[in-house]
């Protein structure tokens, strides 16, 4: 059930990285919100700032080199950037994250039992051992792990890729969090395992009424999983709207190019993709960051960053092509 209360609201967020060559202006005034019980997708190609966004929300950006400039991240109505300590505490309590590569995110020198009980200890250091064990087993069984008892005493390297990701999901759901951040949870897995993991995530999130942000460059899995979707390009949100609507009627030229370039089961070949490559963050284009590659670029696109035009049915698009269509699509 999606309610109208906004669990998370990111407003005008700027994140930049200070590196040897200069300043990488990655997030450039990004807006995003997640309502309670909602599954939100974030689509974009490699290097478009999706992971920076998630890490910013989870407050795990490596700072330095990263720095958060302007902007607000409101979680449960409180700005978590306002008070450093309190903000981080709130996020640790209410948000958990699943990473892309389960192999890299599980310490290979610790057993699954140690890894999982650390999570529980952080919540309540005095929890009795028996209770801790019971809740670990329960968490593993929730993710449909075969022989949970055995897995608990294994090291991550003894498990297969799919099982490792199941452990990561079980760990993320050990605590009663409000928001689950999934950063390409199935990219490193095979397609049949991917289906299992996505079905599992969908089920768990729906059953426990959590909210989720699913980040992926696999368009198909976002379409299958989410209620609303954001399309990101070079640190900017290009467009957003209800998933079904966006996939049926993409508006932004980037989204259109992306969908056309995706090979489809219907055959009929693929388009030639989008000319050019993602711009450098050292000197991103002045106006719309997509303008150098845009087939419909206009003079104004080169000069001024497009604002977000709100159309009806929760559709929003940051493109001057739709300047006259505010409030409607046609």
């Amino acid at each position: 059930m999606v309610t109208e209360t906004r669990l998370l609201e990111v407003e005008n967020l700027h994140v930049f990285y200070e590196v040897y060559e200069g300043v990488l202006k990655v997030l450039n005034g990004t807006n995003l919100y997640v309502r309670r019980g909602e599954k939100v997708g974030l689509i974009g190609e490699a290097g478009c700032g999706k992971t920076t966004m998630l890490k910013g929300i989870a407050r795990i950006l490596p700072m330095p080199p990263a720095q958060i400039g302007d902007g607000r991240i409101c979680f449960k109505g409180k700005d978590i950037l306002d008070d450093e300590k309190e903000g981080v505490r709130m996020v640790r309590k209410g948000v958990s994250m699943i990473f892309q590569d389960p192999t890299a995110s599980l310490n290979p020198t610790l057993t699954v039992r140690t890894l999982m009980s650390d999570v529980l200890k952080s919540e309540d250091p005095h929890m009795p051992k028996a209770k801790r064990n019971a809740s670990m087993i329960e968490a593993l069984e929730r993710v449909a792990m075969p022989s949970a008892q055995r897995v608990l005493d294994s090291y991550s390297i003894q498990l297969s890729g799919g099982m490792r990701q199941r452990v990561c999901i079980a760990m993320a759901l050990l605590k009663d969090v409000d928001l689950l951040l999934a950063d390409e949870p199935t990219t490193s897995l095979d397609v049949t395992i991917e289906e299992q993991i996505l079905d599992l995530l969908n089920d768990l999130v729906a059953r426990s009424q959590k909210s989720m942000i699913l980040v992926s460059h696999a368009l198909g899995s976002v379409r299958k999983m989410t209620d609303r979707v954001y399309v990101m390009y070079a640190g900017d949100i290009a467009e957003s709207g209800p998933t079904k609507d966006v996939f049926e009627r993409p508006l932004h030229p980037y989204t259109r190019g992306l969908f056309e370039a995706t090979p489809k089961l219907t055959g009929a070949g693929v388009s030639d993709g989008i000319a050019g490559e993602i711009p450098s963050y050292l000197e991103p284009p002045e106006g719309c960051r997509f303008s150098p590659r845009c087939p419909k670029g206009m003079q104004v696109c080169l000069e001024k960053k497009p604002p977000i035009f709100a159309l009806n049915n929760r559709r929003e698009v940051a493109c001057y092509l739709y300047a006259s269509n505010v409030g409607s699509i046609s």
Partner: protein
Amino acid sequence: MLPVCVERRKHLMRDTNKKILEVRDLKKQFKTRYGILTAVAGVTFQINEGEIYGIVGESGSGKTTVGSMITGMYKSDGGEILYKGQDINKPAVQRSRESKRAIQLVFQDPGGSLNPRQTIRQILSLPLLLHGRAKKGPALEDKIVQTIKKVGLPASYLDKYPQAIGGGEKQLVCIARALAPEPSFIVLDEPTSALDVSIQAKITNKLLELQKEFKLSYLFITHNLCLVRNLVHRTAIMYLGQLCEMASTEDFFTEPLHPYTKMLLSSIPVISEAEEKYKPITVRSIGEIPNPINRPTGCGFNTRCPFARDICKDREPEMIEVKDGHFVSCHLADT
């Protein structure tokens, strides 16, 4: 359900088109600390001239190992590899110069397969010199420029280093390098899976264009079924070192027979309603690919197969031709 009229022929021995590559009962085992790992357990297929042949499989299915044996990077443990009727089942050093020139390879990760300390000119000149396409001097320079123009990159790129160009362009350089000795057959080992969708499309179309222009044959190794649909003429599905099903791409998508093929097809996440119609069969995915050190007895897929019967655990199914050019290795299709 399954076609009843199963035509039993001595399998895979048809001779319709001119074959460029024939692989018969190819095997490969690796010795590991934990025992013998059977990566490829008897694979038979043929590729016709001018054909794009796809091998699809999950990680660990042995598809890359097959490609490596064809190009001579691995020595096989049994079976035959024939290039235009000539036996080339030996390591690359012992192969004839001609067959080495004719079979080229493009790797998955373009960043890792280009030497960062060489300019693109150096990268492209080596295969030209090695295979005697040109002698040092202005003739070589001409050839290099010709080669890079084949893939649509400007000659100004020749003095750049790989790290100065984008991922898609790097892969184009890899393709140019493979094209340099004027091969007739290229093994493409997941050439687009490390690239973004918008760039992947460009590479895919370029590969198609080159195939038509130079009448090349490809062995396209991939795990992306959507790409197979758009690119490949005939497809083979590989699971645990063996082929489960071989068919023309059209047959394969309209009438999949092997339960594993059905499972694969029904688990593809697609991006439009129109595509959902192309996944008529729902076989829910269960379990994971077994360890190739500890292969299950009988059919390799029986541990995950929702239709498995007793015979599947006891006896390995044979590859049979169900329909013209449509082969499947499954006990269910046998009856």
